[in-house]
């Protein structure tokens, strides 16, 4: 089962045979009642804390509200304000650029590590654990460590650069280096996750394809390009969706490492929504930013899924 799964498997399992006799139908109805009873806690929680809040996000996005008492309806006012809000545009562009760099980088490096570890090598299990390790550590710990390592005066990164004969880089006071430091930290945390998923994917590549390729005299890059990568397409599809959603949600690391600064150089939609919603308490505006984020993720997933289906159909 691959991870086109959600939709695909749902369709497949619909073929449960309809029971013909009356007792069988009764039994089935009883099973249905039990099923709903068992899954009720989950459904209540999802409804109360995901689906209703999602609807409320759209509603709140049309209001002006400080979070105390009822809001005031302002129609599309928040969205009009957004259109001329430089910080919003900066956050949007930052989020997109950030995802555009970290997602491909994490996937490519993760795939590289998976390929390196997919053959017998000494210490394989230890390498695998070590590479995965950053992914399990909290964003706050990572942000603090990053903040210390990228310290402009006494941080280790600049100390190393100076030993190598260069100048220190202003990681915390210049926009581009600050952005680069966040990118580096996030790629470091995500690479191991991509590696583990790719390793699982590589187990599923049929051996005949490699044999056929080697009979044809394919080597190295050719095998990678014509056998491995096409076979890993479902894995890549899944990882891209997963990583895009994850990077859109990046918050802890940015909050602790740069706080969105210097200026708004590393401000993301999440950090901006947080500071408007819970800092300056413009909750309607924060909800409207949430709506934009949701629509972006949704649009991306739909487009990516279509493209994937299309590619599958052609293959």
């Amino acid at each position, binding site marked *: 089962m691959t991870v086109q799964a959600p939709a695909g498997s749902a369709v497949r399992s*619909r073929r449960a045979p309809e029971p013909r006799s009356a007792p069988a139908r009764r039994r089935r109805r009883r099973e249905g009642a039990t099923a709903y009873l068992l899954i009720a806690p989950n459904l209540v929680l999802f409804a109360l804390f995901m689906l209703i809040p999602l609807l409320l996000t759209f509603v709140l996005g049309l209001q002006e509200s400080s979070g105390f008492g009822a809001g005031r309806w302002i129609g599309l006012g928040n969205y009009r304000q957004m259109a001329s809000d430089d910080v919003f545009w900066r956050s949007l562009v930052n989020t997109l650029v950030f995802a555009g760099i970290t997602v491909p980088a994490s996937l490519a490096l993760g795939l590289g590590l998976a390929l390196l570890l997919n053959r017998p090598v000494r210490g394989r299990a230890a390498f695998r654990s070590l590479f995965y390790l950053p992914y399990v550590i909290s964003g706050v710990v990572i942000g603090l460590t990053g903040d210390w390592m990228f310290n402009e005066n006494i941080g*280790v990164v600049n100390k190393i650069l100076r030993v190598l004969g260069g100048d220190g880089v202003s990681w915390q006071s210049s926009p581009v280096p600050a952005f680069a430091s966040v990118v580096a930290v996030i790629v470091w945390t995500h690479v*191991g996750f991509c590696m583990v998923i790719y390793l699982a994917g590589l187990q599923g590549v049929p051996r005949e394809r490699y044999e056929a390729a080697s009979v044809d005299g394919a080597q190295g890059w050719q095998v990678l390009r014509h056998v491995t990568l096409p076979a890993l397409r479902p894995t890549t599809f899944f990882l891209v969706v997963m990583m895009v959603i994850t990077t859109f949600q990046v918050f802890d690391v940015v909050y602790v490492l740069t706080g969105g600064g210097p200026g708004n150089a590393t401000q993301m939609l999440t950090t901006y929504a947080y500071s408007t919603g819970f800092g300056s308490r413009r909750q309607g505006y924060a909800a409207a930013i949430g709506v934009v984020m949701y629509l972006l993720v949704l649009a991306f997933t739909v487009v990516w899924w279509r493209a994937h289906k299309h590619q599958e159909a052609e293959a």
Partner: protein
Amino acid sequence: MSVLSTTARRAGRGRGRSRATTAGRFALLLVIAVIMAFPLFWMALTAVSPERDLAGPDLRFWPSSLELGNFSRAWNALPFSTWFVNSVAIAVVAVVLTVSINLVAGFVLAKMRFTGRNVVLLVIVSTLMIPVQVVMVPQFRIVAELGWVNSYWAVIIPRAAEAFGIFLARQFMLAIPDELIDAAKVDGAGTLRILRSVILPLCKPLIAVLVIFTFMYRWNEFAWPLIVLKDQDLYTLPIGLTFLQGQYTTDYSGLMAMALVSALPMLVVFLVFQRYLVQGIATTGLK
């Protein structure tokens, strides 16, 4: 893997070259390992280094003296013992709760037949696409309506149902043969009995994966507890760490000592359960 290695040997034409590439691969992996491990090493090194090592211009990879006082200094400067206990309590309760309802939901969606099953599955999976920050403001309002602000329930309950875990559980349980369940039904076992004595004993790798993912998620969680917990006494470790950062901006050895302490439980859970992790990801069909 063995398949790939045969292919590699064939492609390498001869064992000499194969041995050379294996050694090269190992060397490359070592270099990458050093880079990947370096931030963790640096955190640990800073945590045990005296102040003079850090502030000086020299690049030192070993402490001039072992300064374990960094730990007690930072630990006692703020209520870290309370925060540690809070984090453990929240994570443990949340793991028990979430893993239990994940398993039940996975079972229902994989093995029970009822009208609307696919709709339920689709709704649950679709919540995976909702970034948490999108719903945070309304979530906070609902929690406030319930009167939970500033309590552990506000941290635990709204995140207890978790679509990824349910999806993993369902995928894993789909692979359990229906015959086992049918046989138990013939023996007169009810649904809960089947779940407990037929299904769950087969789900150990799944449970390990769910525990590690849920624990990680809850132990590391930051933004949501930051919003719903107001009293300092209720803080969890991640919030406490940022509080420490705000109070003692330049005490890097103390900060790194506390960062290390707060990362340790997660590292232990990871090292204990990690062998299930890869296996679990493979068998749950995430490939």
